[in-house]
């Protein structure tokens, strides 16, 4: 574990973040610091704001209060800051969101070509590297609909990696998958974690949290209720709501 970097400036920092949807207070005074190489698992009941939170980090949602800084860039409404942040942060969605009219290879090369201005051969070389890493290089010329759910999600991970981001956001990456495909996606994520990627994962996979997370953050009703390393989080949760949540979720696993 890269503990030596602990004293450095965090890669992602949230300070007193607040968000409203009209009158609904979705995020309440959230502060979170993520060091380079750190793996955070965000969990909590549905509607607790965990997905909203990570969607704020790459400005898919805007915030009304507080401040979000990624790699020294503070997110504002300026297109420049948003571009800079999105360049550093990759995202994987629950429903994959692959582009259905493009092959897996084209899905992977689009952003490197359009955003970074790389040539086609250059971006294809990068794509082959990451498609091999998620073990679907042999599917590169197929369209997303020809792949299984697990393969599609791994393709989506490869697509995000092709931008060579410093951090990855995972928004319930296995929730839309058939049970037999969850493992292949989790294994891919574990591999990524081993290679030192900074990750924030919204997930209900507590086995994954135990194995990979440096910290588990529990949210409910738009607030961070408690956070800690997985050992203490699972063995000795301090809050009643955490205990209730863990009781429910672990009963199913």
């Amino acid at each position, binding site marked *: 574990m890269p503990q030596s970097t602990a004293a450095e400036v965090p890669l992602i920092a949230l300070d007193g973040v607040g968000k409203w949807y009209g009158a609904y207070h979705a995020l309440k005074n959230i502060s979170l610091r993520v060091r380079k190489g750190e793996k955070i698992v965000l969990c909590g009941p549905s509607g607790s704001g965990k997905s909203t939170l990570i969607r704020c980090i*790459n400005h*898919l949602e805007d915030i009304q209060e507080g401040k979000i800084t990624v790699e020294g860039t503070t997110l504002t409404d300026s297109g420049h800051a948003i*571009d800079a942040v*999105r*360049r550093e*942060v*990759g*995202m994987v*969605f629950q*429903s994959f*969101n*692959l*582009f*259905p*009219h493009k092959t897996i290879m084209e899905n992977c090369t*689009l*952003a490197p070509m*359009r*955003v970074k201005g790389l040539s086609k051969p250059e971006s294809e070389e990068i794509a082959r590297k990451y498609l091999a890493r998620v073990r679907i290089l042999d599917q590169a010329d197929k*369209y*997303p*609909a*020809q792949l299984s759910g697990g393969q599609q999600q791994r393709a*989506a991970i490869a*697509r*995000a990696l092709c*931008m060579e981001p410093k951090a990855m956001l995972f928004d319930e990456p296995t929730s839309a998958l058939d049970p037999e495909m969850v493992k292949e996606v989790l294994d891919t994520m574990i591999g990524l974690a081993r290679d030192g990627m900074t990750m924030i994962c919204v997930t209900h996979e507590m086995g994954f949290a135990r194995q990979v997370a440096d910290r588990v953050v529990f949210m409910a009703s738009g607030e961070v209720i408690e956070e800690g390393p997985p050992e203490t989080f699972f063995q000795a949760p301090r809050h009643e709501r955490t205990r209730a949540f863990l009781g429910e979720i672990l009963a199913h696993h």
Partner: protein
Amino acid sequence: MASIGPNELFFLAQGLKWTLALTLIGFVGGGIFGLIVALARTAESAALRRVTTGYIAVFQGTPLLMQLFVVYYGVALIGLNIDAWLAVAIAFTLHASAFLGEIWRGGIQAVPKGQTEAAKALGLHYVSTMKDVVLPQAFKISLPATIGFLVQLIKGTSLAAIVGFVELSRAGQIVSNQTFRPLTVFAIVGLAYFLICWPLSLWGARTERRLQTATR
């Protein structure tokens, strides 16, 4: 009774030429401005959306015949001396862009929101998001309605006769009056329209099938 000879057929062919020219104007002008209308209709700016909504409401809510009149005589009224041909071209472009704009607006909005989000998360800008991700999918969704409208537009060009254009229908009427053979003449005219519209419908159906299998 006069018979339908080479002269009459040549006259009809002249009419057909104008019909094709008007159709081309409607397709190209309507396509370009329709795309702008569709993008403005789905823009983030509320003002842009409101203006284009009004534009579409006006052109969908009034007959094409009236639009031709208004542009043809209206342009003259404000003191601009333009060719009748240009006036009709403007009217067809306005008409087609309102309808195509609304059809494509529907297509754009039918593309799942996750597609735009994935494009944004990858750092793509508006132009690339639209050109590479949203519009190809929106085009596929709107293809049947688009072809349907274009076929209507081809037949709608006959209305240009009202401002003095001798296009295919008007040419047919003239020939019919001279030869007293309305059935034969209008059978020929009808066949000409059919031979323009039918391949377009076929092409639409084939493209639709091709796009469908590509993503399946």
